[in-house]
């Protein structure tokens, strides 16, 4: 059933531009899709390793800026008369560079902050995002600061038989985002169903026991951070070449919050969770806008929803639906499908 449903979902998404000619709705889906990619990457950290990263937007923004700057080229003064310059690079290469740069940032942050965890990690991640925003705002020679990077070139792809295609406008970008989302999903799924994924989940469930069987905490937390950061960077790069203008607001904390809400609502630690949560919170603003709701009210609604979900649906939608489904299949006396708390260990 699961496989058939996923296939039907993908067919629906692939065929959507063929029967949906509302370009504004496509735009909404494109933006939602980009956020879903970011949310999926966040879920790897938040859901599978259990580390609450509140600086995730930093990697998204770094990806957006890195890809834009590489494709536009730049020249900066480093020291005295020494300058560093980069000629404009093709967009596909810029996007690859963005992935690598975001991944490297993830590596550094992981190495620094996993010495300590829990509350410290959360605060470090918030601080990191804020520092990147201030750098984007103040390093005007590189980033244009609040004036924003404009006229970012679009991605060109080559397909055999068709030739060169510009990824510009709604339909091509829709398919690009869809492809990136499927790619992200596959990468995360492969990780989760491997020994690396089991090690990450084991650290979330019971860290002392995990280390006792030889799992290196830092290694797997850093691996999760690097992959997560690189994928968020990819999402940022796609975003930059879609909207073609990037300013320091891409680092706003509220975007991290949006990603966290998507993951928590859908179900952290499930593969489908961020997709479900992402679709809900990607489309909800448009619904609210339809009711003439101003943005402040929308955010108030988000905040209240987040509190209500933590109180009443702490596991998220996907696990709740799955549990309900299982209860229908094998009542009576179905066992609890998920433990409320993991067995704890303190040596």
């Amino acid at each position, binding site marked *: 059933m699961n496989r058939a449903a996923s296939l039907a979902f993908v067919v629906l998404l692939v065929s959507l531009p063929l029967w949906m000619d509302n370009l504004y709705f496509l735009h909404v889906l494109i933006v939602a899709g980009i956020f879903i990619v970011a949310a999926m990457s966040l879920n790897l950290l938040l859901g599978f390793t259990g580390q609450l990263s509140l600086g995730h937007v930093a990697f998204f923004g770094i990806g957006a800026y890195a890809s834009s700057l590489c494709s536009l080229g730049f020249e900066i003064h480093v020291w005295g008369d020494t300058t560093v310059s980069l000629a404009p690079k093709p967009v596909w290469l810029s996007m690859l560079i963005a992935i690598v740069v975001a991944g490297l940032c993830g590596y550094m942050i992981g190495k620094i902050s996993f010495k300590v965890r829990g509350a410290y990690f959360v605060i470090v991640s918030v601080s990191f995002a804020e520092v990147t925003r201030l750098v984007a705002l103040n390093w005007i020679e590189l980033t244009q600061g609040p004036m924003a990077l404009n006229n970012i070139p679009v991605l060109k792809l080559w397909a055999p038989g068709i030739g060169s295609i510009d990824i510009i406008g709604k339909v091509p970008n829709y398919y690009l985002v869809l492809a990136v989302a499927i790619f992200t999903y596959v990468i995360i799924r492969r*990780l989760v169903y*491997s020994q690396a994924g*089991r090690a990450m989940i084991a650290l979330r*469930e019971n860290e002392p026991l995990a280390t*006792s069987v030889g799992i290196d905490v830092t290694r797997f937390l850093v691996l999760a951070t690097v992959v997560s950061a690189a994928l968020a960077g990819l999402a940022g790069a796609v975003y930059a070449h879609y909207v073609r203008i990037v300013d320091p607001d891409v680092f706003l904390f509220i975007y991290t919050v949006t990603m966290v809400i998507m993951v928590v609502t859908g179900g952290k630690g499930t593969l489908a969770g961020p997709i479900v949560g992402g679709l809900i919170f990607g489309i909800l603003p448009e619904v609210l806008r339809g009711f003439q709701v101003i943005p402040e009210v929308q955010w108030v609604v988000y905040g209240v929803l987040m509190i209500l979900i933590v109180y009443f649906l702490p596991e998220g939608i996907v696990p709740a639906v799955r549990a309900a489904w299982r209860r229908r299949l094998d009542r009576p006396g179905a066992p609890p499908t998920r433990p409320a708390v993991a*067995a704890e260990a303190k040596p």
Partner: protein
Amino acid sequence: MRAAASTSTPAAPAPGAASVAPAADAPVALAVTGLSIRFGGLTAVQDMTFEVREGEVLSLIGPNGAGKTSAFNAITGYLQASSGEIVYRGVSLRGLKPNQIAAHGVVRTFQKTSVFGGLTVLDNVLVGLHRRARQHPLAIMLGLPSIRRDEVRLREAAWEVLRLIGLEARAGETAVSLPYGELRLLEVAVALAAEPTLLLLDEPAAGMNPAETGAFMALLGRIRARGVTVLLVEHDMKMVMGVSDRIVCLNQGRIIADGPPAAIQRDPQVIRAYLGERYVRAQG
């Protein structure tokens, strides 16, 4: 069915347990020398020296607070020793992290029940097999066929461990849904999956009923038959006397006796400090 098979021989010495005691001149596996552990002003372990020989089952006994668990934590890297040396097969373990110590083949269980509660029994064992996995992160993300082969191999190994422990019928169940006795078996399964050459068991039989304890003693026999050296902390004297080749008795952080079970039972100091009423009661 599986449970019936193993509990049919309650309390009887497990096959291959005490009967195949290793030669007294077997090489030393673990050497603990002058180990002291202090928390602030409190001394948990003082100047502890003992050796575990290859292939033997050595029990650490002593009243609560004698420093047994502290010594365990120091050996496995969960606690920093204040002074002393811990050497396993010629390698010093002091200052290593728990996962590095596990890589040297020294694996422990925990006193308080400790499993990966949200995972299935099979997944618990798969996590335990971590050291046997050959999966590079890049290969995983590229979806190389070697990963699928490795997963198949790990699953076979996991089923083998489950069969050894007798939990194969529970493979698909979530760990937290297991009854207590099986939960404690699962802990040993996870530790065994990590391929220990020295297995440290911290009160594995605590809270078990006599039938479960008997099954556990039989399991210990199967474990040592695979050549695993065992260091055991346990309060159940019937079990300690039944499975141990040698017993080290601690009191207030110091070793007061070291010898085979028969000698320990006769040792006046041990009887005074610890065994006395408890052992008499167990015998009665």
